[in-house]
């Protein structure tokens, strides 16, 4: 099995694979082929991004400590080059890729997304990267895959927070295959036109702008395609408080606090709270994914 490159002409089996995803998305194959990697500009918000200082000094990345300032202090100890990503639930014989191999030929683009944390604050972040589906479409994904699971690197010698059992390491997250293939679902490798800082999940992180921030898993080393819903860290930690979907929803409160409003980071001490929007304002883009779903039950 040769290395799959973006520049490769899509072989037949990949095409079939695409067909499956196309069906999953409920789109025609034509529409799918017609939107390769060129980003629709409308995917970015027009909101003013937060400053790089705010984005890089206010992080939840428990692998480096539970305080928001810990990641900026301690994340430099993580080696992000070389970086390997292992794939499971794919039929190709090569399952381990170097990051450079994955990035080769990818059309890198900017996406300015709003990020809403489950704790009740929000930011606007100009990410650099590519849609996750550009990567998935290059893989020979098992036909029965319904979910995608992601895993953060486990390296306690470099990530001091992992020496303590704050969470059940390694950190894991997951999406349905439909969510993973949604054009908004993004892999960030950079920020503000530069390389991704370690505290923001270097070198390779997920960004799902319509879900609470903890779904957007950082420093990924493993991606698995599977039939059943995967283990996800926070929803296992406290199933009543964090669901598998964890879509931003002002009408479904966290059991211990309200999700109706959010503090906008950068507004200062006297800033007004912002009303939280359903799916973090991305309802037009992702509303169809959850049509008919009881969002109070599948929070």
């Amino acid at each position, binding site marked *: 099995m040769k290395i799959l490159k973006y520049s490769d002409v899509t072989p037949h089996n990949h095409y079939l694979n695409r067909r499956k995803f196309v069906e999953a998305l409920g789109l025609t194959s034509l529409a799918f082929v017609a939107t390769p990697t060129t980003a629709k500009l409308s995917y970015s918000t027009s909101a003013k991004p937060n400053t790089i200082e705010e984005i890089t*000094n*206010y992080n939840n990345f428990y692998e480096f400590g*539970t305080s928001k300032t810990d990641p900026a202090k301690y994340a430099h100890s993580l080696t992000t080059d070389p970086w390997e990503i292992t794939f499971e639930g794919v039929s190709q014989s090569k399952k381990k890729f170097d990051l450079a191999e994955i990035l080769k030929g990818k059309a890198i683009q900017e996406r300015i997304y709003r990020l809403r944390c489950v704790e009740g604050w929000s930011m606007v972040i100009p990410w650099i990267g590519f849609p996750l589906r550009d990567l998935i479409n290059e893989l020979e994904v098992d036909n029965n895959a319904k979910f995608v699971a992601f895993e953060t690197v486990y390296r306690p010698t470099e990530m001091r927070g992992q020496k303590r059992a704050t969470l059940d390491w390694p950190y894991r997250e997951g999406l349905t295959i439909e969510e993973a293939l949604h054009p908004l679902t993004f892999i960030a490798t950079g920020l503000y036109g530069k390389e991704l800082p370690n505290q923001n999940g270097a070198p390779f992180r997920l960004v799902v702008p319509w879900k609470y921030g903890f779904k957007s898993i950082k420093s990924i080393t493993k991606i698995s395609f599977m039939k059943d819903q995967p283990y996800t860290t926070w929803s296992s930690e406290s199933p009543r408080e964090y669901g598998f979907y964890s879509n931003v929803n002002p009408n479904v409160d966290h059991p*211990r606090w309200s999700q109706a409003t959010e503090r906008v*980071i950068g507004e200062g*001490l006297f800033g*007004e709270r912002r009303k939280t929007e359903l799916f973090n304002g991305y309802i037009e883009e992702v509303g169809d994914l959850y049509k008919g779903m009881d969002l109070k039950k599948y929070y």
Partner: protein
Amino acid sequence: MIFSSLFRSLPISLVYCILLIPIPLYFYWGIVNQLGPDPLRFLEHKYGELGLIFLLITLSISPLFKYAKINLMRYRRCIGLVAFYYIVSHICVYFFLDIGLSIDILLSDLQKRYYIIAGFFAFITLIPLALTSNNFALRKLNIKTWNRIHNFIYIAIVLSIFHFILMSKTWTGELYLYTGITIFILILKIKSTKFYKKLSTYFNADISK
């Protein structure tokens, strides 16, 4: 003991000043945007955490004297009141800045949010202590009544710890530390109660029989 004599010679008014300076100082830093990307949460948490720390210090003074012969009894009232002022500042930040004076949010928080309910009752139990922390009240009140009121601080600390636990996402180092200290202080307190003493003499007598 230079350390303890130095402590004993500090005038109370100076202790008040030193311990209360962080309140306006942090507020000023908040206004000039020196508290990081989320100044509101920083200020709210800082006042609350300092309030908790000063409550724990207040509670440690009597065991420190009893078990370690370190006498800071002179400062107990002052530090207790300092804790109260931090807690008042904490609540002001919550009410004026965090929820923006919204009575609706306050009422819904008080109905639904366990950590707010716990924090609210912790504050309520501290009010009579603060009001009677002066010589006038001490003279006016029967000492038994006064002592009973001031034992409310144990209820307040338990509620405060619950408030902290319930608002946290995970067990952080600070949370373990404050909860551990609280449990330790409570054990010492329980051991010094008449009830416990009676109970232990009863059991000891039982064993010796």
